[in-house]
């Protein structure tokens, strides 16, 4: 990342949330690096690694399956389509490495998911691990630390 482009990084995080909320899922999917990952651990402080299950641990293929499914008229759980809204605190730039072109941003958030007269409220911290690829910024990893990740949860159908 170039020096002085803090605003670009912060705007990227805002933009990423907005694409989800506006259901512009193809554009959102395109923000991820080819080996990008969308991860929501099941426990607080869960270490890296596939030996513990998670709430989300999606590569681009799994994200694509989710996106295409949402458009499938036989997605019965979407008979009433879900909607969501992210409310973000200003992202903080936790680290940045000009040489490798990477940056890590930390963003406390609230996430609302609504479906058929019911609204669920979630909160937590999102970590965006960004890198440069093909002349643009892409997501290497979006890690979502959900405050109530260990709770008995109802269906979460979109993307915190």
């Amino acid at each position: 990342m170039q020096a002085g482009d803090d605003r670009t990084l912060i705007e990227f995080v805002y933009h990423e949330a907005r694409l989800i909320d506006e259901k512009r899922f193809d554009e959102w999917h395109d923000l991820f690096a080819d080996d990008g990952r969308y991860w929501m651990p099941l426990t607080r402080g869960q270490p890296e690694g596939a030996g513990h299950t998670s709430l989300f641990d999606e590569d681009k293929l799994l994200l694509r399956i989710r996106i295409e499914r949402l458009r499938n008229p036989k997605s019965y759980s979407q008979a009433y389509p879900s909607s969501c809204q992210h409310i973000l605190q200003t992202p903080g730039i936790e680290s940045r490495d000009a040489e490798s072109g990477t940056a890590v941003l930390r963003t406390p958030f609230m996430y609302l998911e609504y479906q058929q007269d019911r609204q669920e409220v979630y909160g937590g911290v999102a970590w965006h691990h960004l890198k440069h690829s093909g002349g643009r910024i892409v997501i290497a990893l979006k890690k979502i630390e959900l405050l109530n990740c260990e709770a008995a949860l109802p269906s979460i159908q979109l993307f915190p």
Partner: protein
Amino acid sequence: MVSSAAGYRHSAAAIRALVRDDAVHRDVYVNPELFDLEMERLWRSAWTYAGHESQVPNAGDFITVDIARQPLLMLRGSDGTLRVLLNRCAHKGAKVVGAGSGNCGRVLRCSYHGWTYALDGSLRTVPLKSGYAGTQFAESEAAKGLWPVGGVAVYRGFVFVRLNRTGMSFEEYFGESLSSIDNLADRSPLGRLEVAGAPLRYMHNSNWKMFVENLNDTMHPMVAHESSAGTARQLWKDQPPDAPKPMVIEQFLPFVSNYEFFDKMGIKIYDNGHSYTGVNFSIHSSYSAIPEYAAQMEAAYGAERARAILGESRHNTVYYPSVTVKGAIQTIRVVRPIAVDRTLIESFTLRLAGAPAALLERSATYNRVINAPTSVVGHDDLYCYRAMQEGLDSDGNEWISLHRNYSDAEKAEGGLPGIYNGTSEVPMRGQFRAWVAAMTAGTDA
């Protein structure tokens, strides 16, 4: 609402009338009184799953769990014995242990008046004991300490309890159905399982029986899961046949197998509501081999026995009513009814002790993709349960058809256990036969 106001508590006849040989009355899913009676009669007389012994390896280790509205404490004693006690202080009834898991040290101590208990549940000390001099305290219920549950059985590491003091023995209750737990544990080269981390906890706003029935319902995957597994198939269809399948594709695709596949899979029925799908093969049969693991199994068991263990590919085994086991992918789903229309499903990933990490990764992936509150498979299942819950709680036909492949031969004494075609509704009929027996046992006609 036309739910029966018959007053089920005092009428075994009214309960019997809910279950026909080939149909069941909708009240069993929507009537709160029946739910109360299920907790008191069915769940307390059944052997239900409490936990796994790997969760409490050392003296003082505990987990807490609620079964049929009873707060329980599963605890490893100083003598190494695993006990399950009512988590309820003998003094004023406060829960003695507040945490979900941990180590309590050498004693349990109530947070209110400091009564302490040894790890076997016996009352050890009461502060200012002189205050009880000259009273009947020593002979009272309070002096007896923490009550044990009626029965505890540890089978291949799985801990089951019977809350009632008397009833069927563990062996009689499960019988030959325990072979599914054997097959799961045998898949470890060391014959041992460990719970791998925290469970996925998915709250269902539907009756517990809908979930349990669904585990052996092979007529729904190709319909309910077409949007998820069918989408995966669609996205994969242009790949050459020999392209290596990503793990999730390998796990998704069999869900949209055709009716013939599920029918030929076969179902095995046991007494007391237990059953499993996948007698001949299952949706787990075609996973890619892990050569290092196969070699370990051969070394541990010999070629023939290893082949027999891994050749079993049971789909879902229902240990009625509280837990379902998936040996071929090493996950279990624990059923915790909360209200007539509220059920917590906890899905655990198991590690095969001594096996390569790739197996645990496969189990953890499957558990996430299929059983998480974020699962696109789970979303559509729960949608269907909820749709039934709301539909059944309305006027209309009061009877739910269980006619598929019914035959009068099932009615004969001992006529139910056996092997059936995979799309039969015989598992549900077997569950309701066990349900009626437990719900009317010991009551007047």
